[in-house]
């Protein structure tokens, strides 16, 4: 009897177990879209401490803010954290940097991409011109200016950034971890390539034949993916591209509750610690009526 191909669909428990205290965790999505929010809420419920997080370059949002606000993340590699017109700067990110409660390593979009590219290529650094003249180079000790040996001009060297785990939300996977994004891929494939372990939450697990029928639609091949978790509406309150839009009311409520520490504790108790899984969470934010309202098609 020959062995069977191994399936990668696991429970959320097994997926989140890949994230240890102190891990360097990269997050997919962008701003208020496609963030793996159900995975993030589970990390917060389990109080996996001292995480170092890298929001997607350039734009993390409520994903990073929840990890920072709840206290599980203590270091951020930041290039941006905002929610566009709903919050130009994410509140907990802003507050904890202002009060020096978290360590902040200043990058921009491209220097994080360079770090990922160095990691993927197993190079000691990736080079760029971006950052010359910017104070980003003054405050981030990881970024070094050097003279290019060919033209003698100054350039910036970025060391590898190799996350222990990347957590990503996409729309579909087959049982083996072949992923389809139904909308934008954002930086997800790059982030996954750079990380040691990759966890993807998906809206749907589809038959393998759906993948092989149209391999052009595969956005992240199974070779990049270690674990898949089926979590419908797992990006809420963010959007899941081509499936549902962001929950503007809930994001506004989140941001409002960040203004007062007591309110934020109530928020966490009600929506995160007080719900045991994503189903209970979805009930708490408005249930079927709400998710039908957000559904795109």
């Amino acid at each position, binding site marked *: 009897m020959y062995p069977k191909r191994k399936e990668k669909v696991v429970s959320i428990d097994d997926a989140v177990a890949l994230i240890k205290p102190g891990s360097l965790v990269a997050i997919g999505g962008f701003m208020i*879209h496609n963030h793996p929010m159900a995975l993030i809420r589970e990390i917060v419920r389990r109080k996996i401490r001292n995480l170092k997080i890298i929001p997607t370059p350039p734009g993390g949002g409520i994903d990073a803010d929840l990890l920072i606000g709840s206290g599980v993340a203590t270091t951020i590699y930041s290039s941006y954290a905002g929610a566009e017109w709903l919050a130009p700067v994410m509140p907990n990110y802003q507050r904890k940097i202002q009060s020096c409660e978290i360590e902040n390593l200043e990058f921009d979009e491209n220097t994080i991409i360079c770090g990922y590219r160095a990691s993927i290529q197993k190079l000691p650094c990736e080079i760029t011109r971006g950052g010359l003249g910017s*104070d980003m180079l003054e405050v981030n000790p990881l970024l070094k200016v050097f003279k290019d040996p060919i033209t003698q001009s100054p350039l910036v060297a970025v060391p590898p950034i190799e996350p222990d785990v990347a957590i990503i939300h996409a729309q579909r996977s087959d049982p083996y971890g072949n992923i389809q994004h139904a909308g934008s891929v954002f930086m997800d494939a790059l982030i996954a390539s750079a990380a040691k372990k990759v966890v993807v939450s998906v809206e749907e697990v589809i038959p393998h034949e759906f993948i092989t029928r149209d391999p052009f639609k595969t956005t992240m091949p199974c070779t990049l993916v270690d674990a898949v978790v089926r979590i419908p509406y797992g990006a809420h309150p963010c959007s899941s591209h081509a499936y549902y839009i962001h929950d503007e009311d809930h994001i506004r409520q989140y941001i409002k509750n960040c203004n007062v520490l007591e309110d934020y504790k109530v928020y966490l108790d009600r929506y995160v610690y007080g719900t045991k899984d994503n189903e209970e969470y979805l009930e708490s934010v408005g249930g079927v009526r709400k998710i039908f309202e957000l559904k795109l098609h």
Partner: protein
Amino acid sequence: MSFDDYTSQELMAIVLSRELVDGEVGEMGAYSEIPMAACKLARLTHAPNLCWWCSASSYLNSTGPLYHSSTDYRNIAGAEAVLHMNEAFFYAIPHYDFFFWGGIQMDPYGNSNLTAIGDYKNPKFRGPGCAALPTVSALPIKLYGYMNSHTTKTFVEKLDFITGVGHYLGGDSKSKVGIPEGGGPVLVVTPLAVMDFDEETKRMRLKSCHPGITVRDVQDNTGFKLILPEEVPETLPPIEQELAILREQVDPFGVLGKAKRR
């Protein structure tokens, strides 16, 4: 529809739109309602060959109505192409002529701060972060600046943190740090006025005041001395056709319509 009653954001989008050159290629970052409206309007008026990428999701020339979030799936529907965002560094960015530029502070040389106000290590106000400004500013391309707030706190003589390099310290100082020549801020549009830059010193110069705003108003709300030409014209107000296309085709949901012009 009343054409006298337009918002600041509508005026800024229309002013930026007029500056865009037919046939050029450019980009805006995320959270870019005004630049996106400007590009859409330009393509429907004088610049049908303008091509614009939105860095958020890296999509080209989206044609549908404007939504708040640049990355909203509904904003991307109707685009001509979508890249993986990191691919933009290879397939899109090398062909840019311009980028839209902003920040929480701007100085007389058009340098921009999007990172922190006060001491960096113990900031009074933490901004969203560096975004892509340090990288974009090292490209030899035009930067169209826009700032939603024009006060002595947002336009300052010296930045607390240089996130993106505009004309750096003026003159040829930018090429001395290793940035190729030929790029930099060409224009800054605010709710009060339009500014450009002196060709030699690279300091900011008042170009036109919006209707109802005086030179004195602009200078009083600017934290450094603007170069003031003898004659400062009034910004041409929106013409009926521009406003009609903006409201009917570009922004039917009124994304730019919230803040009434003071």
